[in-house]
């Protein structure tokens, strides 16, 4: 029988601790497949954040650093400056990247660090039990916005990709999602573009992935993916905001 699909050897054999139906696992696979296809796994260094993906290092067979909450882009800067030929990426949630780590991501992007950032926007603090994130939709109920997010006092969802795209230095800024197989394939393409640019030393690449957190959204994974399409995507439109080398057309 002809094998048409297999698990990449860049993923480890460890069972993940993610909730059933969580998108983290899908994005891990897309990254791992990309590292294998680009033949860079042996020189790849990942940086795990603080958040549900804190143990990401257990699921990849590559060198890994575990950073403090929000600081992954600074840690990546230190690693990449030391080992410019390695392939360095951070994997960060929305609390990590868009709240406590806002300064680190903006400035790493603005310096044009030759790294890749994969940003998991699930609109919530997953790990700590479902508190409001900077990306939580207006009206959405969370543990710390029990009456719904009130834009007047809690602000509105931050669109990080759009902000990063206003900077001169970043090479590639795009937003994808993984709610359908077709979208997973597009997300894979975006992640591959990002790592390809890094491999070619063409600068900072940023891939935002709009994801679900079925557990803290209180929804079944299938319902959550539907809810994402109807509610998250109008606020976080998919698309590419910056592509200075035209890699998507290449």
């Amino acid at each position: 029988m002809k094998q048409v699909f297999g698990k990449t050897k860049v993923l480890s054999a460890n069972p993940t601790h993610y909730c059933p139906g969580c998108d983290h696992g899908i994005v891990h696979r897309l990254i791992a497949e990309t590292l294998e296809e680009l033949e860079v796994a042996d020189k790849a260094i990942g940086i795990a954040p603080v958040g549900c993906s804190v143990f990401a290092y257990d699921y990849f067979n590559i060198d890994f650093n575990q950073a403090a909450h929000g600081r992954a882009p600074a840690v990546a800067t230190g690693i990449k400056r030391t080992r410019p030929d390695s392939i360095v990426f951070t994997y960060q949630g929305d609390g990590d990247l868009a709240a406590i780590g806002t300064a680190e991501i903006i400035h790493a992007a603005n310096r044009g660090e030759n790294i890749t950032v994969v940003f998991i926007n699930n609109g919530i603090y997953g790990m700590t039990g479902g508190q409001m994130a900077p990306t939580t939709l207006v009206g959405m109920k969370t543990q710390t916005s029990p009456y719904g997010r009130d834009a007047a006092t809690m602000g509105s969802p931050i669109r990080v990709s759009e902000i990063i795209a206003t900077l001169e230095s970043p090479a590639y800024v795009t937003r994808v999602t993984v709610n359908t197989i077709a979208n997973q394939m597009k997300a894979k393409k975006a992640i591959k573009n990002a790592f390809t640019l890094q491999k070619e030393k063409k600068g900072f690449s940023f891939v935002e992935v709009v994801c679900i957190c079925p557990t803290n959204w209180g929804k079944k994974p299938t319902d959550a993916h539907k809810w994402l399409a109807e509610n998250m995507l109008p606020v976080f439109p998919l698309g590419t905001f910056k592509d200075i080398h035209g890699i998507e057309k290449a």
Partner: protein
Amino acid sequence: MAKVLMKGNEALGEAAILAGCRYYFGYPITPQSELPAYLAKRLPQVDGVFVQAESEVSAINMVYGAASAGARVMTSSSSPGISLKQEGISYIAGAELPCLIVNVMRGGPGLGNINPSQSDYWQATRGGGHGDYRTLVMAPNSVQEMADFTLAAFEYADRFRNPVLMLSDGVLGQMMEPVVMPSPKDYDIDSKKWALGYTGKDKTARNLCTSIFMGQEELEEHNWSLYQKYQVITDFFKANKELAVEEYLCDDAEIILVGYGIISRILKTVVEKCRKRGIKAGLVRPKVLWPFPSEIISKLADKASKFLVVEMSYGQMVEDVKLAVEGKKPVYFFGRTGGAVPSDFEILNEVDKIVRPD
């Protein structure tokens, strides 16, 4: 090598390069600015990397990253900035990474002022950040030692896989003195086989840098191994007394003055003036503040009858001296803050009050 006239901060910077340090990450703050200014010029000349970070928080995390990738790396700041670095220092200690952190102390609390001070002793020697960890703390007292201690600091950091903190102050950082630069050391990044990105043929498994140990047993085991390492560091300095302390005229001393850093230079003058007046004074100067040279001070407490600790704070190291003396003899204290550097005359007055109480 010939003697050159240099500022303390610059001597430290040049010594870092001689030690093989090629990576500096920092954020501007007075009174340490000469150090990053010097390295911003020098590092590109030796294929090194200088990054002005967006904050001290980012700078220390860049250090964490670079150290995890095997670099000889440093950062520097002054008191308020060192407070911001504490979370990162805790991670670096937890992940057992070597690096140099320089604190050119200024007055606090809060924004305080930019004058020299010694009020970060507790923060430096008690960890500063969260968790059960220690940093090795060195306290130079001259421009020459700013250079020499820097070379030693990188060696200790690598040898013990531990962050080393250089506790300097605004006077030492900015004063000029003649200095003979130490000889350069070779540094090979591939000597650290545990480093991320190490690609040697002998690499059999992937490398991981982390400070998270979720299981209770796992973390207890990790903390125990850290504790044992701290014992090794302590024993090292016990066995190499000359690296840990300077003793001056202590053999027959009745009163022993204790001070570190710039204060110890003034105390030496005070001891000499005391001797001229017939007061048998001596000086103990810790060069390493953690591990504290308790044993040496404890032994001196069997002979001398009194101690006077002088600091540019309202009394921090004095607690370690009291712990070492164990109540065997009285321990007096004199301190000034806010940038006031006590004069030899003021301290002499204090000695007089203690030895001639009438």
